[in-house]
């Protein structure tokens, strides 16, 4: 029984780190630019397809293919900022949001047409053979997902806490006008956030795709990342990680102890309850904006 519980927790935490990887970037973009990026799931998918393309059609080995995928994805983020977000910056927020929906569809349908609707195999970064420890099986390739999301988390934390550049971005997010006055250009911050989050999309995709199977519709998983971000308050990066892991655990527990049919309803109901009763997320002190 204890083994079952631990195994469930492990499965939940792994699925949760998939959600967390996505939630981190969604929160990053939202905090930095005010936009909820509906294209993120598709950017993630496209990043992996760049990797597959480099491997299968350009004949590159894994490491350079990964590098190309991350760079191309970053450039795509730059393009989004310059071609779409910058011209729309003074518009009601719904318009850039819908633009991201359209960009996501461009990526998804473009890749479906060019790379085909069928699944592509993606190489695992670590072994898929499990270790059995006290009746619990632990799979290295799954731990890679957990590990990556912890590492990304720590890197971002270090970046924002200890580098001048990161501090500048944080300042610009908190108070764009103030930042402008002290000489931090707002345009440069949003540009760097789009590049950074797009590179994260490719990294997240490359880690997740071997597990989830690469198809053009893999980006749908971003809806779960979105839910995780909400659970974490949609404000802080640590909140996003905790929200993701929590969502994974809730799903696993509900799936086992209630029923697999109720799994999603249960997790969405928790989500609604959190928003209604603790609108700033589970982990922030209540500070409801009052007029």
């Amino acid at each position, binding site marked *: 029984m204890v083994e079952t519980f631990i195994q469930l927790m492990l499965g939940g935490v792994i699925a949760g780190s998939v959600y967390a990887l996505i939630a981190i970037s969604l929160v990053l973009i939202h905090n930095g630019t005010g936009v909820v990026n509906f294209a993120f799931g598709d950017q993630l998918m496209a990043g992996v397809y760049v990797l597959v393309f480099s491997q299968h059609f350009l004949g590159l080995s894994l490491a350079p293919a990964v590098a190309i995928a991350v760079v191309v994805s970053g450039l795509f983020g730059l393009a989004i900022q310059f071609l779409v977000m910058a011209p729309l910056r003074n518009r009601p927020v719904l318009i850039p949001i819908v633009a991201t929906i359209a960009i996501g569809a*461009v990526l998804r*349908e*473009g890749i479906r047409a060019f790379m085909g609707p069928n699944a592509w195999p993606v190489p695992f970064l670590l072994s898929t053979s499990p270790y059995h420890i006290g009746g619990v099986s632990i799979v290295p390739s799954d731990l890679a997902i957990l590990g990556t999301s912890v590492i990304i988390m720590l890197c971002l934390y270090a970046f924002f806490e200890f580098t001048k550049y990161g501090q500048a971005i944080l300042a610009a997010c908190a108070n764009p006008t103030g930042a402008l006055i002290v000489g931090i250009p707002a345009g440069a911050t949003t540009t760097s956030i789009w590049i950074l989050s797009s590179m994260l999309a490719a990294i997240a995709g490359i880690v997740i795709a071997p597990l989830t199977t690469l198809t053009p519709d893999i980006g749908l998983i971003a809806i779960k990342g979105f839910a995780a971000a909400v659970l974490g308050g949609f404000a802080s990066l640590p909140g996003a990680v905790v929200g993701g892991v929590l969502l994974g655990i809730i799903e696993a527990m509900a799936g086992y102890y209630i029923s697999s049919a*109720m799994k999603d309803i249960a997790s969405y109901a928790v989500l609604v309850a959190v928003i209604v009763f603790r609108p700033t997320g589970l982990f922030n002190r209540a500070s409801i*904006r009052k007029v």
Partner: protein
Amino acid sequence: MRDGLVWMLWLAIAVSAPFFAGQHLLYNIGIVATTAAIVSGLTLISGVGGLISIAQSAFVAIGCYCAVLLNLHLGIPMLIGIPIAAAVSGAVGWLLGFLCLRLDGHFLALVTLAFSGIVHYAIINLDIAGGAVGLAVPTVTLFGFVMDSPMAIYVITVVASGLTLWFIGLLINSRYGRVLRALRQSEIAAVSLGVDRRSLRTMALATSAVAGGFAGSFQMLQVTYLDPHQFTIVSSVFYIAIMVVGGMRSVHGAIIGAAIFVFVPEFLSGLETYMAFILFLLVTVFIVIMPDGLASIFSVPGRISRWISSRFERKNKNA
């Protein structure tokens, strides 16, 4: 005055279509009408009210399933069941608004997203409603006649959507609509003038739910089958896209947006598997050059010259 002219144009198309259009075009015009009526609910809550609702397809689902289940299990005729179903959908919308609109309007997007997910998974597991397999929609009878010819369905659905669009249009231009707009443009000012923000927005959400449930039920008469796959978070998001592409400030935008997503894919069908790629590329370009929606097409030349002059000014400033 121009608004009236545009209405006349829509009316003229809807009325003359049965005489010049073949069955295929007629069906498409019917789909544009019901889709636009569904989206007009969003125009009220999002375009005018400034709140984001990702629940429109959930409201459509509630309307459709209520109407069909009332018919199958209680024998209530479709045309009586649909208004009841729309009212149920509205009540759910009101409850949703009541629960989360006491907070900052931002939370509506999040709650409605989760709500869409719950409704989808609930339908999938509700065997009384056909579950994942879905349900065939019963035919409509009017005074004992079965109305299942394409023409009869066209007339019924277009009249119902026309009424919905017209009602939402009136609402947007009424005092109520103006207060809602004021709330969007300056929340603090409106509230300090004594506007009850919460009840106003809750009513807007309920109204959008009624529009979705009502027009959605009529769309089901065109589609003839309820498949849970039609009611996902993705479809809710798609309705938002239709609204923005057409123009989110008036119901005309909803009509234009719906028409784009019905007719442009057919126009591009020669592209075969690359059609959707090009379609959404065009949509993206559209949004960037015409962020106010296609309904704003007449003001394009002015915008271009303004854009050029602003670029020019900035260059001078930098230099």
